[in-house]
């Protein structure tokens, strides 16, 4: 089981990184989403894997899955929705404003020479 979950985390991370390195906003956003899954699952596994013992108290049971990582990951999932929405909005705004959805500004797009004091 542990091997399987670790594989899944690895595959999602790899896919996420690859898409993160693409040149257009949409695949980059998908890559970030994949990485989010991977990170959330990884955080979740910090409570170690437990089958058939959800952290809902029952009479006669004394072993439960670790509830704390679950609570933290729960809010992380919701927050990551908010962040995805913001990133999508920024990407969309950039595309609508310039008709271009590249993530890279060329190095010559900005003249970075600082303004000097002219005596």
């Amino acid at each position: 089981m542990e091997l399987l979950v670790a594989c899944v985390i690895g595959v999602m991370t790899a896919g996420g990184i690859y898409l993160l390195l693409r040149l257009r906003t949409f695949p980059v956003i998908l890559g970030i989403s994949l990485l989010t899954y991977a990170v959330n699952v990884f955080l979740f596994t910090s409570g170690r894997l437990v089958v058939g013992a959800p952290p809902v108290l029952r009479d006669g049971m004394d072993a439960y899955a670790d509830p704390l990582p679950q609570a933290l990951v729960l809010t992380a999932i919701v927050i990551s929705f908010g962040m995805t929405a913001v990133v999508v909005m920024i990407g969309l705004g950039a595309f609508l404003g310039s008709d271009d959805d590249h993530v890279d500004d060329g190095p010559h797009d900005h003249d970075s020479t600082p303004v000097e004091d002219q005596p």
Partner: protein
Amino acid sequence: MSLFIIVALPFLGALLPGLMYTAGRAACAGVTFTVSLAAFLGLLTNLPSVLAGEVLTARIIWMPELGLNLTLMLDGLGFFFALLILGIGLLIIAYARHYLSRDDHMGEFFTYLLLFQGAMVGIVLSDNILLLLIFWELTSLSSFLLIGFWKHLPEGRQGARMALTVTGMGGLAMVGGMLILGQIAGSYDLSVILQNRELIQESPLYLPALILILLGCFTKSAQFPFHFWLPHAMAAPTPVSAYLHSATMVKAGIFLMARMWPVLAGTPEWFVIVTTAGLITMVLAAVIALFKHDLKALLAFSTVSHLGLITMLLGTGTPFGAMAAIFHILNHATFKAALFMSAGIIDHEAHTRDIRRLGGLRKLMPITFVIATLAALSMAGIPFLNGFLSKEMMLEEATHTTLFGIPNLVPILATVGSLFSAAYCFRLIGHVFLGPVRDDYPAKPHDPPTGLWLPPALLIVPVIVIGVAPFVAEPFVKLITASVLGEAGEVPKAYFKIWHGLVPALFMSMAAVVGGLLVLLLFKPLLAAWDNTPRPEAKVIFEGLIESAAGVARWVILGLHNGAFSRYALIGVATIIVAGGYAWTTGTIAPPTRELQAVGPVHVATGLMLVTAVAGLVLMHRNRLLSLILIGIVGLMVSIGFVLLSAPDLAMTQFTVEVVTIILLLLALNFLPKRTPVESTLLRRVRDGGVAIVGGLAAFAMAYHYMLRDAVVAPISEFHLANSYKGGGGTNVVNVILVDFRGFDTYGEIIVLGIAALLIYALTETLLDGPVRARLLNRKLDQARAGDVHPMMMVVLTRVLLPVVLLVGFYIFLRGHNEPGGGFISGLVVSIGVVMQYMASGFAWTSARLRYPYHGVIGAGVLIAGLTGIGSWFVSKPFLTSDFTYVRIPPFNEFELATAALFDLGVFLAVVGAVMLSLESFSRLARRAHYDESEHPMDIDPSRDAAANEAGGAA
């Protein structure tokens, strides 16, 4: 008066001039003067105890574990400097009132001045060296504002920047030195550090600490090779120069050397570094000063030279040297402030400070002539003026000092320095005031109003009094010297008198004065020789250094940060992998403590689907619609994984979030291109793939190792499991953690979520107001539209479903405390129910039926959650303490009422509001782009068509 009030007064008073500015210049200066006067008088109230040799302290313990305490101390040395700072400050304020023109913003000026004054007083009264460092940096910052006060002058801005750079860098070095010193002594309190002379001087870290602290002192006090900033700071208004460069800012470094004298001085290292720097500065600056034509530049270099003199005296490490240094600080502050103010008067009245354009002012400005001449003669070391006495003591000390084993080196250099010092003083008198009256001054010079000449005239009083009757100053100077020396030395017995007999110092002094006169007579040929000598120009070197530093910074920044996101992403990922790999290979990994658990077919199937979906996503990401479906599958499989691994709450959350995320991405995709073109080269894709595979392997390895080992320390969740029912009243531990144990976290998170939604809303508004709006209106659809945008089946179905969804949401909300569910999940479920209406029936129809704006819903949610937390204050419990009870209302069974449910309601509302506001913002864009928007829920409606037909037929 309490030391705290003395330090705080200038800072608090700094608020007033800005406020009083509209009340007029007199009121503005008046309030500044009053504040300074109050601090000055407050300081004087402590005079009796200082004279009695007491050390006053005031302390507020703040973080004793870190040695961070607000502790102040007033001894003789601190009192002396505070007296100079506040006393000369008063004269400067009065002077500046008349000096500044109507175009200068006086409120701003006095605010900066008071800030600076407060910082200086803070330095000299600090007992904690960390506190001292803060005040030290504050003087750098406030002097930056003062030096650059005339923002319209490029020299002012450049001078201010140079001063800030040099003193700021020195300040940074000093931070390091002070921290080392504190580490050696085991305390950051000066009073403790000063007791530990042996401990500090024997420490191997003594030399680094000494060098770092001296860097701070030398930069601040403009010692060679950091002397170059001070003359450039002369671009400031004259009151600033008079204040900063006679009595305060540049004396801060001297003060610190004096303060640290008992623990740092007396070693060969201290002697060589400090004495050499002082000697070089003294001679070099005196020579340069002679050839400066700008009156203020001349005075600036003379200040540098005199600071060198004082530094050299402190460097000798003898009690007599320290006493001479203190005496000269006092004398220099008086005559130099008077000279700066006189220079300001000349500039003010004659409209030039160029010595070559002046001369003969003796007859035109008699009052200024008297003041400036007395001050200059004192500086030159003429008997019966105070400068003579301390210069004599310096020469006396020089005859007893041997540097580098070369006999007579120090006395000769000291005499040469004095000689040039006398020469530039004579030049100042001769070339500005004496000689024939000219007829080509830029303006007609005359004596200034009383307000301008009175402050320097007052300073001449001590110059003469001390000069004629040195015994007046003797007890005071000896008192200060005693507090400088501490237990490290005895105050010398020597008496202050004008005539010491035919001692070597007298002959050196005579040589200096006569030599000075000779130099002045030979000034013309000397100047020609000076002008023909090539010299390194400090400003050019400084700017070259700054430029090369900026070049390196630019190279690094542009190399890493050239606007290409994919590059940062690559650098970031690679760095993480490398750092992780380093940690992995250098750390030790404990043997596994857990067994691998068995895998069932469902697990394998879920995992396989997930991996397949990810693989498909990577391979087919260019088809964006398809990739959306695939990422939906990934999310779905993750939530199934949560179900299988005992996390029902997570599964429900992941599932519902997945739905809204996909809807959101669909809305965005509506505007974006539907395909991603092939742009990157094969090589690049291989590279990215390689990085991705390495990163994936790293994540795999880490997760795998992690899961096979138990936690090193017992997880705190055992507490949560044990107390969830007893203390929180709920059996669903995850929910109890969210709304109770870690409710404050959750509170922060719903606020973040709300802010994210508001940000999206604001971005949409901006886009719709800007040029994007026209683009949207003219947008051509890139895909064929469905004939039936709002299909009847879907409309009917979603509307029937809405109450069911709301019911489910309500149910999930209520049971959340004891079963999987809760505010987050029910909020998402309800959002989906409402979003379905938007999708099925259209934006216009749905928003027309919307009663509450989503911003309000977010706000209400945060408010309810916050008020629930505040409620616990009323029963004297900390924020967000929850309580619960069981009630029974017939005909229901007994049920639980918990304040946590109210908090959860806040979470619910915030989630609904945030999700809906985000989605609505996206669809507002969509609505803008569509040409026609039906008010009707369905596009095809036979009854409406029939009615239209009837109406048409009737017409």
